[in-house]
């Protein structure tokens, strides 16, 4: 197992270099000069444009620019925004917030989704099953920004139960509603996945054997059935953390959460390559690590799977 994990970690390096290059290339190809719109309805002075291009290596060819970026990145320097703020400072401010939001969303979707999935899977065809089916379909059908605005306006403005936006500190309590909004779509998927998996495995041979052996129903469901049904759900949840972080941009905009979504969006509009590449590279790392974690968990959940 240890060697397997090590090998996977080493594989991260070429993947990271490849992704940073792709991201750099993509931002670089966005049309428009980053300094063309900087001075409003007046062209910026040539001296300003020349100085800025020189400072940010924009006169070099793409490969040279990327090489310089990578060289400083290896030394831990993420570069500067055009307004002279360290990208590392922006990331240090925004990353924990988005991570917190994504984790809140993940916990909400996992808890509610799993509970609803297990309950309906055990009683498939019941009234509860149909009710959950309808509500999950409803959640899947509604775009996130609708859920977000509806909750913000009803809970925040009309009833005054919550603040309509999240403060700069982004306390856990403030993130519950945005986390629910962010996780709502995935919550519906988790419910459907769990339900299908449980309903399927309930009829399998090993469950019948366990029941025939006279095991307590709680042990049959809690240990044998759950453990085997968890594999597709764990895969989904693992990959989902990265998705939640990368997809938080809409939720962050609605609730004014100072996370990475807004940071990347603003940076793309102004063609700030350093910010986009820095943030997205870290996102890629989250994806890769979560994938690794999921693969390791497979072996824990299913004894038949062995690495090495």
């Amino acid at each position, binding site marked *: 197992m240890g060697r397997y994990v090590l090998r996977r970690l080493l594989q991260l390096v070429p993947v990271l270099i490849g992704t940073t290059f792709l991201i750099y290339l993509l931002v670089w190809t966005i049309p428009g000069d980053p300094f063309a*719109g900087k001075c409003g309805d007046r062209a910026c*002075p*040539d001296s300003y444009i020349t100085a800025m291009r020189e400072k940010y290596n924009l006169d070099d060819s793409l490969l040279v620019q990327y090489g310089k970026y990578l060289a400083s990145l290896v030394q831990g320097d993420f570069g500067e925004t055009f307004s002279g703020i360290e990208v590392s400072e922006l990331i240090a401010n925004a990353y924990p917030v988005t991570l917190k939001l994504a984790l809140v969303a993940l916990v909400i979707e996992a808890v509610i989704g799993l509970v609803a999935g297990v309950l309906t899977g055990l009683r498939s065809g019941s009234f509860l099953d149909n009710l959950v089916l309808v509500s999950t379909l409803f959640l899947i059908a509604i775009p996130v920004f609708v859920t977000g605005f509806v909750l913000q*306006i009803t809970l925040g403005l009309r009833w005054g139960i919550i603040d309509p936006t999240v403060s700069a500190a982004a306390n856990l309590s*403030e993130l519950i509603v945005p986390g629910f909004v962010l996780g709502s779509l995935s919550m519906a998927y988790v419910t459907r996945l769990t339900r299908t998996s449980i309903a399927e495995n309930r009829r399998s041979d090993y469950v019948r054997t366990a029941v025939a052996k006279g095991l307590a129903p709680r042990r049959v469901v809690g240990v044998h059935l759950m453990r085997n049904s968890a594999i597709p759900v764990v895969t989904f949840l693992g990959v989902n953390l990265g998705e939640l972080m990368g997809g938080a941009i809409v939720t962050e905009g609605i609730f*004014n959460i100072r996370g990475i979504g807004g940071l990347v*969006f603003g940076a793309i509009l102004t063609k700030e390559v350093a910010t986009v590449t820095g943030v997205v590279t870290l996102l890629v790392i989250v994806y890769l690590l979560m994938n690794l974690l999921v693969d390791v968990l497979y072996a824990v959940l299913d004894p038949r799977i062995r690495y090495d």
Partner: protein
Amino acid sequence: MRSRRVAAWLAVPVSVALLASACGGSEESGGEAGDATISIYGTEPENPLVPGNTTEVGGGRVVDALFTGLVEYDPRTAEPRNAVAESIETTDSKVYTITLKNGWTFHDGTPVTAQSFADAWNYTAYSPNAQQSASFFAQIEGFDQVNTPDPDGADGPQQAPQPPAQEMSGLRVVDDRTLEVTLAEPFAVFPTQLGYSAFSPLPEAFFADQEAFEANPIGNGPFTFESRQPNANIMLSRYEDYTGDPKPSVSNVEFRIYEAVEAAYADVVAGNLDFLEIIPPSALAGNLYQTDLPDRSSSQTYLGLQTVTFPVYDPRFQNPELRKAISMAIDRDAVNQQIFNGLKPPADGYVAPNVPGRAENQCGELCTYQPQRAKQMFDATGFQGPIELTSNVDAGNAEWMQATCTTISNALGRECRFVPVPTFGEFRTAINAGEMNAIYRSGWVADYPSIENFLNPLYRTGGSSNDGGYSNPAVDAKLAQADAATSTEQADQLYQEAERMALQDMPAIPVYFQSVQAGWSERLRSVTVTQFRELDLYSVEVG
């Protein structure tokens, strides 16, 4: 059973958290009127907070609170009045003697002297310093010795030559309180211009350590810099030794950065944010904001104008008759009523309302909707193909541009097509490069309140924002004559004549005057929105 118990355990912290966040909202609203903090909507500054390098709104409103120039503008009428200057005297509009008031200090305690102004202006004008506002000093004698143009533009391989001098010869510090400014050509509007933030003084600390200054800006304005968290907020506090008059009554100001204006609006309605000067379209629809914010909102025009400009360098748009025909084909009233709920009045000239020196209805019937006459004129020009209008669409311009297009094609019977461009950066790239091949959106917000600011940069040959390439020697001559006038009244008359002359060529079509809809929390009293669409920080009170 276990799952139910888990749910119960979860319910406790969730409900506690909900309660806590519900209480959080009301905590901030207390506080004495004397030491109150007010929070104002802000956007992330695009540049370090240095006055000569800040040209956008997000940094501009912070710089305006941190610095006071020689001149400031009345919040309601936009009329200039002396601030740091005690007097500004001239006999020929060419040599100005500026006397400073006694006792002004920077936030670090050092005095504001004539040298502080001379150093700041020389720094901003010197081209190797690469400041955005360098061109504002172009009128001062010796500017061409400190600011050398790039021979082949920023894109070319050649470098701009090193300027021969570091200081403009037209700036002479007579003593600590007297500055003598000599202009290259007479310029009557110069005293008005002095209130623009690029003309702010800079303390010695700026020249000693610029990076430290950017991290902790030191100005001479009514508020001092406290702290800044990027993408979250900028905190200012009242400068207790502020010499100017009036003095602000609120003691702390927080510029809170929002990514989306909808979130800021929700905060104003809930009382979490004190002031917002942009009401989002969702709340403008059906005037919802007036119910959401009863007696806590305002709507007024400010010193801004929206136009569509012809790329005159494109041979298809060189006929003035065609340009006038399209202007008369725009039903400005219909666009205003249907798109803006009647909040943005149709433009009747090139100069926004309340600008000192402005005359009413300069455009006359050329800006009046006359579909039949427009069609006759248009058909006579023999213009081929569809009419195309273009704009960036990242700031909500698509709707009115499309509506304008519709009224044009209804009147002229020729297809009018709206071509969207995704970002402002991309849009400006094409404009700067002179590669426009469609009629494009152009806006103008005054840098300083003068009719001159709406004409010289835009319609004079080679003007700093004359992107369409319009050139008429008669207009140039009239503008030069106005610049050289010895009194403001005489200058204004001549500028008005130049405006009428330019309108006869219609290089750009005035469409509507900009307006600002502001909303504020229940705590604020005596709210005034300035002619530069900022909250007047001097007069606002917390009740």
